[in-house]
């Protein structure tokens, strides 16, 4: 399969999914007017990727969102849900939830996602100055 690359805009994040290195990055801001239109290809890629993923491969997901709106928060939950299911099926996936030093709200979102998932590894990572 091919890598997925979508450049950032003012209200959508950069998507950089590398299926050779098994590193998936979502970086930037997320508050599109039409949430479905933007994320549909992202979910489609993710589902195909997990289907072909072998159990001995280690996957790293980096989520570095400076700001996201409430409907993006729902999308992120659905995204993590797919990952949790994959882990239940024997895949090895770790999520880095990256936040800025003084950004309590993004940290709190990360903590709440940790509470929501049983076996998916979500690491809270403070961004270095």
């Amino acid at each position, binding site marked *: 399969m091919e890598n997925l690359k979508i450049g950032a805009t003012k209200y959508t994040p950069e998507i950089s999914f590398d299926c050779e290195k098994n590193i998936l990055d979502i970086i930037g801001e997320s508050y599109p007017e039409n*949430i479905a239109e933007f994320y549909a290809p992202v979910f489609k890629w993710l589902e195909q990727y997990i289907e072909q993923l072998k159990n001995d491969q280690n996957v790293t997901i980096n989520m570095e969102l400076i700001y996201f709106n409430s409907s993006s928060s729902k999308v992120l*939950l659905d995204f993590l849900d797919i990952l949790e299911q994959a882990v239940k099926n024997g895949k090895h996936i770790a999520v880095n939830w990256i936040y800025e030093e003084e950004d309590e709200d993004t940290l709190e979102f990360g903590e709440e996602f940790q509470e929501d998932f049983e076996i998916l590894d979500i690491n809270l990572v403070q961004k270095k100055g």
Partner: protein
Amino acid sequence: MVGKLYDFRQELGRQGIFFCFSGPVSQDLLVEFGDILKQKILHGESSNSIALRVFSMVVEQAQNIIHYSAEKCVKNDSEGEERELSIGIIAVGYEGEHYFVVSGNMIEEENVEGLRNRLAKLQKMDKNELKKHYKEERKKGPAITSKGAGLGFIDMAKKASKPIEFDFKKIDDKFSFFSSRTVI
């Protein structure tokens, strides 16, 4: 009107309002407003985390107008395609050491009761109840194909320092004007 514009501006100033927009609300307006906030941070008038909260309130309220306002107009976009825009009013101010965001738009009379009940319920919740409610609603929220996730008001209530104030003004048999005020 031209003679009264200064008075209008003075009145906004008295209310502590430093940004006010009335008309068709678009995503571009949000980007513009985000830039105004970044300037405030640069000049040390606001911290990064407070500015992000103000921005998030503006985004949620503006997108509520975009998705749910009952008043629309049609505009041609840069590619000449006709686009429907939603009309509303949004203002941001600073009062008593807190930022606040007020917004308003027309809604259909049949949606007034549902919205009133939802907001009244949120007003009574404390921070822990809001957090729990947010998580539950997010889990059962609609599929990705929906316009929004219906989480906007809960998110705002969670981030606000006071319960969200709201009002419905009956315009005629079909429409009411909905307004809300959130304090950061």
